[in-house]
């Protein structure tokens, strides 16, 4: 039953929340890693990635207005295609967000090192310490941080604008010529790699219950925030490339790898000489808030799956003392720390993107399933334009990107999908009666329900 939330988020609030969820590693950490892959054409890769995300964002906007529930991505896919695909999507979405948060924490550690003179080998231990602190904070529970969030977003956006304006006087035009792919990959590979920069756009779906006039504000907020972020990424990445020696970007990071702090690298000459400090401070703010939001949001997936009997019930348990789903958060936090400790940083980013592409492809499919099966409870207030062509383009685009990512991410995506299937067969199958909307297409009017629980 509802009635627990009032709809009080207007368009501006939706825009801020969505941008806040996107600003983070995509702009502060990934540019140099992308530069290594595609050279100065990485600017184009950001735009391309945004265009491939767009169909899934539209699909999600529509489904969010029909089923405003926490655990959005998983819920949509599960209700559309049934618990088997739902399990794969839930695990995929969960892993993707945890990888993204791990990556944000490693980047955060790298920016913190710019304040203090300690060896670069300490990046991971620092990231682990910060990660532990964030997990504990989430287990104990935090109060509404949305106001703080909008202050951070405003400050970071202002800094980025200042960075672009300031930096554009200092860039060396020669670094854009020839405007070409010079890296060890290509534009498509780089696009797949920075795909995760737009993952935050789906944050809106998870707060759909609180948005006023959702049929208008959700799609507009999503599209506007994506448009703004495409522009921001394009300009910021262009300035990063123009300010820095290519060698710094490609070999300036830990162990001679790509720089993890590309925005601070050439910033010494900005903001009256305190550029490095200002940028690093903003990066720390943005990445902390991203990692924190990531832990919070990713713990919603095991929680929602446990409520649907696809994972042990214990994961949906709310702790009496802290009033948080502490088991789901601790479980998520444990994975986060293991990833930081044992997975190389570039692979963290790649895998986060790969799982995200997998999930977004499923999101496009889920919309098709709902539209075609026409189940009675599915009644969105916003209908995505361009159906089904937009969804098909999104699906094909996603698969093309996935195919260009190389072996580790492909194996990772396949592994997650297999793992989801095995998990469903071993655990969820005997415990759930649900069918997806898709089943009605095959004459099965089984237990399709909007929530699957009463």
């Amino acid at each position, binding site marked *: 039953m509802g009635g627990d939330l009032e709809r009080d988020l207007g368009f501006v609030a939706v825009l801020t929340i969505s941008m806040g969820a996107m600003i983070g590693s995509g702009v502060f950490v990934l540019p140099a890693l992308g530069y290594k892959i595609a050279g100065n054409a990485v600017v184009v890769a950001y735009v391309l990635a945004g265009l491939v995300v767009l169909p899934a964002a539209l699909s999600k906007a529509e489904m969010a207005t029909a089923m405003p529930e926490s655990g959005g991505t998983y819920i949509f896919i599960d209700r559309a295609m049934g618990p088997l695909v739902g399990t794969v999507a839930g695990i995929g979405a969960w892993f993707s967000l945890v990888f993204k948060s791990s990556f944000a924490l490693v980047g955060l550690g790298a920016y913190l090192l710019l304040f203090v003179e300690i060896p670069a080998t300490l990046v991971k231990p620092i990231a682990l310490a910060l990660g532990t602190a964030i997990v504990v904070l989430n287990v104990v529970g935090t*109060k*509404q941080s949305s106001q703080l969030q909008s202050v951070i977003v405003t400050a970071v956006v202002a800094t980025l604008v200042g960075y672009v304006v300031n930096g554009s006087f200092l860039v060396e035009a020669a670094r854009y010529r020839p405007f070409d792919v010079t890296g060890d990959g290509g534009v498509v590979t780089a696009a797949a790699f920075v795909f995760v920069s737009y993952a935050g756009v789906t944050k809106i779906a998870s707060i759909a219950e609180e948005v006023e006039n959702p049929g208008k504000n959700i799609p507009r907020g999503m599209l506007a925030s994506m448009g703004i972020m495409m522009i921001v990424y394009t300009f910021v990445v262009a300035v990063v490339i123009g300010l820095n020696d290519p060698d710094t970007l490609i070999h300036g990071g830990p162990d001679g790898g790509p720089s993890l702090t590309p925005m601070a690298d050439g910033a010494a000459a900005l903001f009256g000489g305190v550029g490095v400090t200002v940028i690093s401070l903003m990066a720390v703010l943005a990445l902390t808030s991203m990692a924190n939001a990531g832990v919070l949001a990713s713990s919603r997936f095991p929680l929602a799956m446990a409520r649907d009997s696809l994972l042990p019930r214990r994961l*949906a348990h*709310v702790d009496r003392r802290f*009033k948080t*789903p502490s088991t789901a958060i601790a479980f998520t936090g444990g994975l986060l720390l293991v990833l930081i400790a044992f997975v190389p940083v570039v692979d963290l980013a790649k895998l986060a993107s790969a799982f995200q592409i997998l999930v977004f492809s499923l999101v496009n499919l889920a919309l098709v399933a709902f539209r075609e099966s026409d189940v009675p409870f599915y009644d969105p207030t916003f209908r995505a334009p361009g159906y089904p062509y937009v969804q098909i383009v999104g699906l094909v685009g996603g698969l093309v990107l996935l195919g260009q990512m190389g072996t580790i991410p492909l194996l990772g995506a396949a592994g997650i999908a297999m793992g989801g299937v095995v998990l469903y067969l071993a655990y969820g199958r005997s415990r759930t009666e649900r069918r997806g909307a898709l089943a009605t297409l095959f004459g099965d009017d089984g237990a399709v329900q909007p929530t699957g629980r009463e």
Partner: protein
Amino acid sequence: MTHRLVVPFELPDPQPVSSVLVEALASLDIVVFGHYGLPEQTPPAVAREQFEAEAKEQLAAVAEPFEAAGASVTIRLVFGRDRGKAIDQIAIEENCDGELDPAPTDRVERILVPIPNTGNVDRLTSFVTVFAEGHDPSVTLLHVVEGEGTDADGEAVVADGRELMVDHGIDPDTVDTRVVTDTDHDAVILDTAADYDAVVMGEATPKTADRIFGTLADKIVNRAGKPVVVVRRNHAEDDDGSA
């Protein structure tokens, strides 16, 4: 008209309202409102599933004395993150014109009524009358003159207020008035409240500082430890642009 008063309780384990206060409020319509505060990590639906039965039991227990005292009681329960916002929402939905900020008290014999020079003095006095029904407490109308005003203006404000109360049928001998000139309006009221058993006041126009440090009513409850009845602004009027 009968006034409707929302009485908020913080769940789990709500603090019962003192019996004298229950008695004093028994002639009003009471909306017993349980707010189960959640951190942002917890989807309300999940917490509701797990804690609803217990929360309802606890609410019924704190509502029982009101029913026994003869008040008409409505019970509402919300699982959410923002208590103030939820109270506002319930007050509007349930058409309440007042809100109790409870605090422990063992008598309701002296009531302080801070009167502003604008706003809903009429509703305020009408509320005081109902609140005082059958108890004959002594009522003090207090006006703090800030900045530009003069004492004469202040005297006029409290005299008008007193007249209204007498019109409403309060014994004139029980109503006295005070006018204080001071730069810090809130501090005066906070200090004065210490000598009274309860405060009935109008809802202030929300300021940013209140969001951070709490409203004057919150301060009276927390620092002076006195129950406060806040008479809500007429939100419909405000929307027309008139204060």
